[in-house]
């Protein structure tokens, strides 16, 4: 469980995070989404105890990250941005060090390391110095390091950055697995990533939380009403258009052969049923009626317009 309660963080005069509150429950993968400089990394640094918040407080597994820093960090696995590693250690030395420093009992260390090595696919590089590894392997070493003590809370800063498509798929699989029982917070600027792995999205812009919910909810909230694409066998005539006005706004229309396709924004408390009734009343024949979901790209662009 992660709880951020009104956290703010400044860097000198720059307000990097502005009164952000949210929670990540166990069994949930939450994505922090926003352009560079929106405050994603800073929020993670506050949650992991690398920076103290200037206002507000944060709890990790029920422990305040400042006042009860050690138990909070105990429950936490963290992959910092760019997956920093010790180039002069071998993968096995590094994991052994992290396991020891995080208090994994000596008797369990071997098993714990074997498990994350297996999960992150590091068997082939276990005894190689990290400096010789490719970017993809380093990233996976960073993830393995974050998981070796079986934490209940996992914070991953851009876990798939710099990876090739196959590696991205495998990291996403790991993240989804983790999300089955743990609280997982990840940051990304890749929209497909959010849709692929996140149960919920927090959208940040210039340090503020501007939207929260499932990608779908955010779309609805932003639009305020639903958009549908209606296809009729023939264009509606004048009276039919007049009758449509109270039900929905016609955003755009086009012809597809004989058919007519209109994008309609439904009025408040109006649904597809109203459109059927309207079509029956004015003798129009419906060929198709599809809800249109705003893509996350649309949402993102609208919410963060002007910040870059």
């Amino acid at each position, binding site marked *: 469980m992660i709880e951020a309660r009104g956290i703010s963080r400044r860097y000198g005069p720059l307000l990097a995070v502005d009164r952000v509150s949210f929670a990540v429950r166990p069994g949930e993968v939450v994505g922090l989404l926003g352009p560079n400089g929106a405050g994603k990394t800073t929020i993670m640094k506050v949650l992991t*105890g690398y920076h*103290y918040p200037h206002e507000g407080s944060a709890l990790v597994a029920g422990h305040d990250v400042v006042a009860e820093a*050690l138990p909070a960090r105990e429950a936490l696995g*963290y992959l910092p941005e760019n997956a920093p590693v*010790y180039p*002069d*250690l071998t993968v096995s030395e590094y994991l052994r*060090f992290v396991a020891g420093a995080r208090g994994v009992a000596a008797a369990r260390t071997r098993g714990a390391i074997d498990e994350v090595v297996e999960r992150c696919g590091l068997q082939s590089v276990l005894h190689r110095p990290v400096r010789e590894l490719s970017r993809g392997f380093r990233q996976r070493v960073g993830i393995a390091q974050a998981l070796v003590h079986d934490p209940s809370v996992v914070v991953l800063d851009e876990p798939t950055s710099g990876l090739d498509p196959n590696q991205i798929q495998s990291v996403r699989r790991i993240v989804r697995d983790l999300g089955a029982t743990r609280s997982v917070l990840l940051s990304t600027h890749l929209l497909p990533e959010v849709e692929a792995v996140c149960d919920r999205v927090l959208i940040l812009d210039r340090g503020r939380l501007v939207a929260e919910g499932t990608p779908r909810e955010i779309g609805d909230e932003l639009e305020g009403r639903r958009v549908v694409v209606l296809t009729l066998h023939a264009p509606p005539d004048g009276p039919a258009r007049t009758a449509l006005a109270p039900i929905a706004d016609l955003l755009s229309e086009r012809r597809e052969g004989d058919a007519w396709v209109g994008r309609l924004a439904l009025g408040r408390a109006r649904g597809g049923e109203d459109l059927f009734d309207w079509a029956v009343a004015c003798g129009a024949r419906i060929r198709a009626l599809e809800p249109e979901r705003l893509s996350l790209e649309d949402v993102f662009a609208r919410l963060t317009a002007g910040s870059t």
Partner: protein
Amino acid sequence: MTRRFAALVGKELRVAFNTPVAYAVIAGFLLFTSVRLFVARDFFNLDIASLRDYYGVMPLVFVVLIPAITMRSWAEERRGGTDEILLTLPVSERQLVGAKFVASLTLVLLALSLTGFVPLLVTRFGDFERGEIVGQYLGLTLLATASVAIGQLVSSLARNQLSAFVFAALVLLFLTGAGSFASAAVVPDRLASALSYLSLETHYRSFNRGVADTRDVSYFVAITGLALVLNTCVLLARKAR
């Protein structure tokens, strides 16, 4: 030593010994001090049954040796971003500072203990005073302890290894030479005694003659403690900044 602390110290030593730097620094130290004694000073023709000359130059050699060992301590962690891993481990900042200190001191004391071949070699040829050699090693151990703590503090403030090395060497050079500036008598008496009190080398002097003075011991302990506390404060201040 707890398991966590042991893991932290072990990681520092492993990083040091997985690269050639530590070996090179220690070898360079042994080579320089031995060449100076046996070649430049021509020790065997001096006909002196004392190693004061050999150990008396150590404070000046430490000015280079110790920053070379401590330079990467924090500066390299910050440059590589791995400080973010360290500082988010479930370990207190005090333990992190302590572990780095123990590891660096271990390397310096390893280098120092390897100089033991010199007394083992020469005491066969003359009537050396054993107590004096014990005093010299005790004094150098204390001097190394304080210097490592200072070098590590400077590393926590530096942006990279090179500036950590240069600034630590300057600080140690000042603290080593302060007593000599004072006795050059071009400064007011008050300042002279302050400089002399501050000087690492002044406090090592009596050890080099085989005399252990508790005031010197407490000076080294106090400097070490102060530098380690300040190092912890630097880490905490950076989190809150």
